């Protein structure tokens, strides 16, 4: 084992965990002042619940053994339940740092993925049902997907698709789940009839800064070493975020006449999403192309929710689903041998494999989440009452207020 790699990966764990509070504030600033704690809590609680589900069973299902159905490796086993068999070595993963660090790094990804979904269901979902949703989803949707892509499962093995740091497992997965959940949940009361505006963009901008910062652990940490590949992933991450943010405000300038702060940070996040599956496979110019494509296409995708009339409150579809798809597909075209360490050859064939992996990931996540949402709706109920919604989730769900008037 290598102490340099261990130190970097421990740091990366902390960086990736820090993204969830970042996401909470990114989202929290965009809701109305009566729903801020409701929004923050839906993100923070993932740090509690998913840690428990991951240690008990999620990690094992994702990264231990193989259960095959029809020759396809679809899920792990329970051998590592409770992480008891992990040991104080690197025997399980064979990486240059201890297995417990690798399992913790993977945990941080498992935490932020369901948290990403919360932006689509803002300002109207029950907290209790959300907590149960996160627990079950992390086991029946996240763990299998992580297994298919990173745990030796069939997407990596038989489909032959590559996902460096979570385009499929994190972003397409969360985006497809967000779409399924919001369709069952329904729109916010008054959506499109009244102006529902962000209550504090400075909070959103601060949160986006935390996300950008943490994303270096997310992507460069996914090199699983402290080496030139980690350095390249770090660099491509910065480039894609910078280009997408700049392209987004250019698009706003052209389309609306003024660049917006929310646009800049939305572009940055879109670029970070899109570079995620590609970060360790493309070079600086490939990262620029991915940044530019995601900035433009995600910006255009904002219209989808108005065209099809679904209340994706904080644009999880336009940013994470669409951004994730762009990144997954372009990975197949823009990966270069030099930067990917000769792992695979980019081209139309790889593009096809990437596209198939996108379809599988979308279909699985959407389907499973839709069923889970329906079951939870029939048993616990997904929505707060209209009165609770109108009084705001801070007070009605948590008996607290974000901004109190008197000291």
């Amino acid at each position, binding site marked *: 084992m290598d102490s340099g790699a261990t130190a970097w990966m421990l740091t990366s764990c902390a960086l990736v965990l820090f993204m969830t509070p970042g996401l909470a504030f990114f989202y929290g600033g965009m809701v109305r002042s009566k729903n801020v704690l409701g929004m923050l809590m839906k993100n923070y609680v993932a740090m509690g619940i998913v840690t428990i589900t991951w240690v008990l069973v999620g990690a094992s299902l994702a990264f231990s053994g193989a259960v095959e159905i029809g020759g396809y490796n679809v899920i792990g086993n329970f051998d590592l339940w409770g992480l008891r068999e992990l040991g104080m070595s690197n025997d399980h993963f064979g990486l240059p740092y201890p297995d417990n660090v690798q399992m913790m790094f993977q945990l941080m990804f498992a935490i932020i993925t369901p948290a990403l979904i919360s932006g689509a269901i803002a300002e109207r979902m029950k907290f209790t049902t959300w907590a149960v949703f996160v627990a079950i989803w992390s086991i029946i949707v996240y763990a299998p997907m992580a297994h298919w892509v990173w745990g030796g499962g069939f997407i990596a093995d038989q489909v032959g698709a590559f996902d460096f740091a979570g385009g499929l497992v994190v972003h397409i997965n969360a985006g497809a789940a967000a779409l399924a959940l919001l369709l069952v949940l329904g729109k916010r009361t008054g959506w499109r009839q009244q*102006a529902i*505006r*962000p209550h504090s963009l400075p909070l959103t901008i601060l949160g986006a800064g935390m996300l950008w910062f943490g994303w270096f652990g997310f992507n460069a940490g996914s090199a699983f070493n402290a080496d030139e590949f980690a350095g390249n992933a770090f660099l491509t991450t910065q480039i894609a975020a910078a280009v997408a943010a700049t392209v987004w405000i250019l698009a*706003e300038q052209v*389309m*609306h006449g*003024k660049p*917006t702060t*929310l*646009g800049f940070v*939305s572009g940055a996040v879109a670029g970070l999403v899109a570079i995620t599956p590609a970060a360790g496979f493309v070079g600086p110019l490939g990262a620029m192309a991915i940044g530019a494509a995601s900035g433009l296409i995600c*910006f255009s995708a*904002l*219209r989808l929710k*108005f065209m099809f009339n679904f209340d994706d409150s904080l*644009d999880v579809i336009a940013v994470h689903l669409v951004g994730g798809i762009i990144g997954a597909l372009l990975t197949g075209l823009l990966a270069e041998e030099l930067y990917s360490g000769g792992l695979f050859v980019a081209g139309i064939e790889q593009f096809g494999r990437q596209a198939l992996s996108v379809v599988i990931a979308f279909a699985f996540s959407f389907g499973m989440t839709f069923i889970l949402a329906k079951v939870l709706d029939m048993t616990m109920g997904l929505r707060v009452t209209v009165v609770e919604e109108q009084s705001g989730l801070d007070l009605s769900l948590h008996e607290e207020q974000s901004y109190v008037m008197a000291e």
Partner: protein
Amino acid sequence: MKLVIAYIAPFKLDEVRDALKGAGVTGLTAINAQGFGRQSGHTETYRGAEYEVDMVPKVRIEVLVDDTLAPTVISTIETTARTGSIGDGKIAVLAVEDVIRIRTGERGRDAI
């Protein structure tokens, strides 16, 4: 005694406060407010979605004054808060039955 209530443009607050101090006013209350009048609202754009916002920010000033000082206070606010463009605001003057200083229990003119 009078309660002078003025709705003014927020950027005029400092100027109006200084002018009122100069005119002998010993205290005032200012409150952030939102409202609409003849001044039309504005457009806000969030992620490409445009919203027409009819409510514009104003500051509501409340000044308690003795009858003799009231005309000066009113004209001071009027001249200081005026820019000549739409949205300068309004002044309302109300008769006040009594004023009580909570700390000392003084009443009427002495409490102002």
